[in-house]
């Protein structure tokens, strides 16, 4: 079976700094794969290359066996790859609902003339966008529903902003969702809740998940497979237990913890 996402030997450097130095990885359909590694290991650069924000210097990115190198970010989103950002990036002055509705943009097609003349198909589509956006917001329970949907995004609490960002990604109807440190800055309870959400994304929505995570409880709890990176290369791969006991990983990533 061809993997859903396949990254072959990608290299990306900024000046003399190699953020990615020949990284290989693959994600099969229905998997939850965690990427771990110390800060500066190239994890976020990997996401940026996969989603088309950066173009790799070398190597190949294939989604559903099709090369997506050189595609614009919006084309990649349309193919079914959605993402969140390490530092939450919402549309702060748009309402919560509008944020999620933007996610539906790539699945819909009505344009200027439909909007001006309010054609029946435009109205139907607008209704559909609204419903789907609400469904995506509803994934997180009551937190992003009700009166909150009409609030501008900037009034949300930090945890809710993170949830909204994920809901917006879900609203693009993706096949693969890339989560960049989804639990960063969350308190322990929110972190555990989010762990369940990640599992539910696969079990209920049928998504494939690629997640960058630092919180080892989350990594342990969700991952089918863990990939450890350092200096833009893969240094270990396998189940959580295999990777966590790998000497190279301990040295690179957990080394500080062992030393402390």
């Amino acid at each position, binding site marked *: 079976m061809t993997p859903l996402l396949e990254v072959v030997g990608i290299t990306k450097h900024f000046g003399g700094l190699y953020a990615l130095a020949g990284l290989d990885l693959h994600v099969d359909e229905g998997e939850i794969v965690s990427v771990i590694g110390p800060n500066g290991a190239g994890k976020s650069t990997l996401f940026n290359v996969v989603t088309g924000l950066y173009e790799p210097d070398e190597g190949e990115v294939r989604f559903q066996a099709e090369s997506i190198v050189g595609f614009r970010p919006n084309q990649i989103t349309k193919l079914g790859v959605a993402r969140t950002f390490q530092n939450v990036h919402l549309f702060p002055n748009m*309402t919560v609902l509008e944020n999620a509705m933007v996610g539906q943009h790539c699945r819909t097609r009505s344009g*200027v003339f439909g909007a001006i003349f309010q054609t029946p198909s435009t109205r139907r589509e607008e209704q559909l966008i609204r419903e789907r956006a609400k469904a995506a917001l509803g994934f997180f329970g009551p937190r992003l529903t009700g009166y909150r949907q009409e609030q501008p995004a900037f009034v949300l609490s930090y945890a809710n902003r993170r949830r909204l960002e994920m809901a917006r990604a879900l609203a693009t109807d993706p096949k693969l969702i890339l989560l960049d440190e989804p639990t960063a800055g969350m308190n322990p309870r929110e972190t555990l809740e989010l762990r369940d959400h990640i599992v539910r994304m696969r079990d209920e929505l049928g998504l494939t998940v690629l997640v960058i995570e630092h919180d080892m409880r989350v990594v342990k709890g969700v991952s089918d497979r863990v990939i450890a990176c350092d200096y833009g290369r893969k240094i270990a791969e396998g189940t959580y237990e295999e990777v966590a006991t790998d000497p190279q990983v301990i040295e690179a990533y957990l080394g500080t913890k062992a030393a402390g």
Partner: protein
Amino acid sequence: MRRRSEVRASISPGVRAGLIGGIALVYLAMVGMIEAFDDLLLIGEQVTLGLVLLAAPPFAAAFLAVRPRVVGGRVERPAPLSGLVIGVIAGGISGAVIAAWLLIVEAIGVERVRSVFVAVSPQLIEILTFGQGVAVGTLILLLGGMALGALGGVWRTLRHGLRLPLSVAVGAVLLMGLLQRIAPTILDELSVERDWLYSKVTFGLTWLGAVAVFVVTASVTAFVIDRRERAEARPPEAGTPQGRRATRTVLLLALALGLIVLPQLAGTIVSEILGSVGVYVLLALGLNIVTGYAGMLHLGFGAFFLIGAYSAALLTGANLVTAFGLVAPEFSAHLNFYVALPIVIAIGAVVGALLAAPVLRLRGDYLAIVTLAFGQIAAILVTSNWLQPITGGPQGLRDVTDAGLSGLSFRDPQDFYYLALAFCALAAYVSWRLASARTGRAWNAMREDEQVADAMGVNTPRYKLLAFAIGGAIGSVGGALFAVKVGTVQPGSFEILVSITTLAIVILGGLGSVPGVVVGALVLIGLPGLLSQFEEYRLLIYGGVLVAIMILRPQGLIPNVRRSRELQEDERTQDAWQQIFGEPEAEQEPAAEEAR
């Protein structure tokens, strides 16, 4: 020790504001605005616009110096006494500055100062001393400043429910005074007895009229505020969307009816002015799509004004001015205006998109500079020798068609008013529909964060092109209307002014707000048109207004209504939500979970 530093901390803003107010006064006096505006009587035989201008800086300085205190994240009204003290200080210093300036001028001699500052005339000194001589005059300035400062300081400490009606009432009286060329005509036309309101001698409001306007507007505003507060005290479900929609429809119909009847009552001057306002509303609605919706600063939007004007002139047939008299340009079609207009719109859209193509990768400042250059290039091209056989070069084009629909003439202010009104309504409708549609959301997302919009599936280059094209199309309609209104297309150095004015309208009204655009155009184009005194100081007023709006109300006069309302309602809805559902955010320490 601590008390003294506290007192100093509360007084120093007053001193600073007072100095700024005083400098503003000196400036207004020295550029001649106070004198120029002194012949416009607003109320009775005493209150002139010049006097209002003289009184405004101390009042504003005191008002701004008295800052509300923020205690624990809550804004508290300042105490009346401290408001009074700080206000008196600020106003007094403003008065002292202008009084000191007066003494210096007297010491040097008015005529000698005048040889450098032409506006410093004996008449100005007469106005500033209230005709009482310098000694008494300085005293009046000082005491008057203190009194106005006290008023301004106390004004700030008033309860919102009290301050707003009073402010609205003062504004209404001033506006009625400024409208003295229009309002009496309308009242006469309606055969309403108006001698008690507007004097036939001074043309301004009578004292009785001013008091009546004040009382009526104050009580109406107070009533409306009271009703709104009561409506808000009720649970949110009470205000049904249908009820709101019905009121809105009624209001819109009333507004439309008023706009249709207005020129019949108010006469041709008003139609003439509103026609110009209409041209700028179209330009500003176009720019509003590019800058307000899509967030791309465009400093050369006047180019679309030129494009619209020239293409309308050439498509409907106009003449060049040459040394041998009037000749037809090398290219001209003789189309009916309404046949030509869709072509003009298409040209505007195509040129807009062509401009967008090279700047798709640019953002912010860089984009602004390129668009600025674009405006200049357009202005230079049309006056160039190269295009002279078509555009007429510096002389421009004449004899643009004046034939409207059967029997109507574009040169007639009344007829043109309706034409402009129709197109403005159309453009406003298009803007409004786009804003709430998928396209508008994509623009908004792009404005908020271009890279993220891209990552969420918005094809940003495409939507940039679209914004430039639609903005250009709407803006060029404004240019086309201008061409047929005036009948000539004369280029000059005014294109950059058109660009700046259009941007000022959009910013003043509130970026992305359609009603804001209309209000902005009425304030910046309509008011100066009404008062000949404004004309000379138009740009100074624009600059002052823009600086003031950026500092005091950066979201514009009429910002996106829905959102600002939500912000105010947040607290209340949140409370209601919590009562019904309990607080979903209430986090307990997950002891059991944590232990794993």
